C-alpha cells in the first residue's frame, strides 16, 4: 500500500513530457530563438498569402526600388520596394509559402519512402536488401543538383515536380540510416522477445523498431530541411524552379540581381530570410540531437534542474 502511494507520488512529480521539452528548449537560448523564428516562418507560410496577397502584388511605379528603413511608410514597406514598387516585406512573407511547401513536401516524401525502403532492406530478405541498396547507390552517384537541373528543364517546373525531384535525391540518406539502425536494433533483446512471443513483422516494425530509430531520422530530416530550402532557392535562382508570377525567396534573389548596383536590398532581404531559416533549422537540429537521445538528454535536463 505504502509502496503504491510512493509510486504515484514519483509519477506525479515527473513533469509532463511536453512541459519538460519546452523547459529544455527554454534553457537553450539559441535553440529557442531558432524555434521562435521557424514558428514565425511557418505562420507566414500558412496565413501570409491569404492576408497579404493583395498588398504583395500591388504594383506602385512611383515607389520603384524604394529604399528600406523609411519608417514614415506603412510597415510592409519598411524593407523597401522591388522593381515594380511591390513591398518587399510583404512579398517575403507571401513567398514563404512556396518555399516551405516545397521543403516540407520533399522532406516528408523522402523521409517516408526512404524509411520504408530502409526498413524493408533491413528487416526482410537479403535479396530485397541487395536490390534496394543498389538502387540507393545509383541515386547517390547522380550529381543531385545536376539531376534536378536536367529533370526540371525537361518537365514543366511546378511545386509538385520540384518536390518529386528533390525527394528522389534525398531518399538514400534516410534509406541508409534506417537500414543501418534496423540491422542493429533487430538483434536487441526486446525485439527477440517480441518475436518469440509471436508478434507479426508489422507489429515488430511499427511498435518496436520505428520508435527506436525515429529520433535519429527526425534529426536528419531537420538538417535535410535546411538543405532542401537551399537547393530549392538555388534552382529558383537559376530560373528553373518555381516560375513567376509565383514567388519564392530564391526567385526574389534572382530578380533583384539585375538591380544589384542601384538597389542591393532587392536581393539582400530574401537571401537573409533564407539564411536565417536554414540557420535556425541547423541550430534546432543540433538541439534535437541531444534532446531526442536518451543517453545524451541528461545534459539538458540537469541544466534545467540547476536553473529551476
Amino acid at each position, binding site marked *: 500500500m505504502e509502496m503504491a502511494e510512493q509510486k504515484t507520488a514519483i509519477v506525479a512529480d515527473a513533469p509532463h513530457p511536453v512541459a519538460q521539452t519546452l523547459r529544455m528548449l527554454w534553457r537553450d537560448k539559441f535553440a529557442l530563438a531558432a524555434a521562435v523564428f521557424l514558428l514565425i516562418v511557418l505562420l507566414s507560410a500558412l496565413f501570409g498569402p491569404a492576408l497579404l496577397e493583395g498588398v504583395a502584388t500591388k504594383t506602385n511605379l512611383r515607389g520603384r526600388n524604394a529604399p528600406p528603413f523609411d519608417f514614415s511608410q506603412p510597415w510592409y514597406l519598411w524593407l523597401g520596394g522591388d522593381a515594380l514598387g511591390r513591398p518587399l516585406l510583404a512579398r517575403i512573407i507571401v513567398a514563404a509559402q512556396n518555399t516551405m511547401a516545397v521543403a516540407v513536401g520533399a522532406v516528408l516524401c523522402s523521409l517516408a519512402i526512404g524509411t520504408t525502403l530502409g526498413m524493408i532492406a533491413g528487416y526482410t530478405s537479403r535479396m530485397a536488401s541487395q536490390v534496394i541498396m543498389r538502387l540507393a547507390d545509383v541515386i547517390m552517384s*547522380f*550529381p543531385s543538383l*545536376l539531376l534536378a537541373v536536367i529533370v526540371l528543364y*525537361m518537365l514543366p517546373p511546378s511545386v509538385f515536380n520540384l518536390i518529386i525531384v528533390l525527394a528522389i535525391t534525398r531518399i538514400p540518406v534516410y534509406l541508409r540510416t534506417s537500414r543501418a539502425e534496423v540491422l542493429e536494433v533487430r538483434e536487441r533483446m526486446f525485439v527477440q522477445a517480441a518475436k518469440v512471443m509471436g508478434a507479426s513483422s508489422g507489429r515488430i516494425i511499427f511498435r518496436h523498431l520505428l520508435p527506436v530509430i525515429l529520433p535519429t531520422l527526425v534529426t536528419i530530416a531537420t538538417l535535410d530541411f535546411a*538543405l532542401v530550402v537551399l537547393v530549392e532557392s538555388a534552382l529558383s535562382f537559376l530560373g528553373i524552379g518555381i516560375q513567376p508570377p509565383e514567388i519564392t525567396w530564391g526567385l526574389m534573389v534572382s530578380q533583384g540581381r539585375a538591380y544589384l*548596383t542601384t538597389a542591393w536590398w532587392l*536581393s539582400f532581404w530574401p537571401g537573409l530570410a533564407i*539564411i536565417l531559416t536554414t540557420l535556425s533549422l*541547423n541550430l534546432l537540429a543540433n538541439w534535437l540531437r541531444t534532446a531526442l537521445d536518451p543517453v545524451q538528454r541528461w545534459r539538458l535536463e540537469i541544466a534545467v534542474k540547476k536553473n529551476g
Partner: protein
Amino acid sequence: MKKFLWKRAVASAISLICLIILVFFLSRLTGDPTDLFLPETATQEARDNYRRVHGLDQPLVSQFFRYVTDLVQLNFGESVRRAEPAIDPVLRGFAWTLQLATVTMALVTLAAITLGSLAAFHVGGFFDRVATFFSLMGASAPDFWIAIIAIVVFSVGLGWLPTSGTGSVWHWIMPVAVLFIRPFGLILQVVRGSMITALNSAYVKTARAKGVENRPIIFVHALRNALLPVITVIGDQTAAILNGAVIVETIFGFPGVGKLMIDSILQRDFNVILAAIMVTAFAIFILNIMIDLLYAVLDPRIRY
C-alpha cells in the same frame, strides 16, 4: 583488392548506364531540336533535311542505339551549336572546373585540418567556438546569395575584385571563396570529431605520459589516425564541386563544365550535355577509386 575494384567498377557502370538512359530519353522527350535550330520561316524541305542529317527522323529507340554504339567508340558526336566535336568544349570546361576544385579543396583541407585540430584540443574553447560558427555557416549559407553579396561589396562597392572571367589571380578569389564555405564547414566538423576520439586514445595518453609536447601530439600522433574518416569526406566534397559548381560558375562567368552544361541545356545541345555528364561521371568514378586506394595505403588494417 582486385575483387573490390571489380565490384566498384560494376556498380559504377550500372549507375552510368542508368544515367545515359535517363538523360537521353528525358532530353529527347522535351521537343524537337529542329524547331530550335532552324528559323521559323524554314521550309518543310529544310526541316526534313536537317532531321535526316542529324538522324532525328529515326525512331527514338534506334536513335538511342546509334548513340550508344557511338559512345562505346568514345564518339560523342558533333556539337550542334559550336561546329566542333561535342567532347572538345567539355574537356576545355572540365579542365577549368578541375583547377577550380583542386585549388578550393587544397585550401579547404589545409584550413579545416588546422582549425579542426585546434578546436578538438580545447573542446569548448575559443577555436572550438570559431569552428562551430564556420560549420553552422557552411551548412546554412546559400552560395548564390553569398556570391551576389560578395560581388556587391568587393566589385561594385570597393572595386577590388573583377566580377567575372578568368584573366588573373584576382578573378579566382571570389569563386574559390564562395565554393570554400560549404566543404570547409563539413570537413571541419569531421576533423574535430575524429581528432577528439584520437586525442582520447591510449597511444596519445602514452605519448603524453612520456612528456611529448602538445604540437607533436596533435600533428604527429593524433592527426595521422584522425585523417582516415576525413579523406572520405574530402573525396565526396571534391566530387560535389566537380558536378555542383554550376551556380558559382554561372554567377562569376567561370568557363567551367557546369556553366557549359547549363548553357547546353538551354540551347538543347544534346551531344554536349551527354558528353559533359559522361566526362564528369567518369572523373568522379576515378576520384572514388583513388580515395579507396589511398585509404588502403594509409590504414594497413584495411584489406578489401
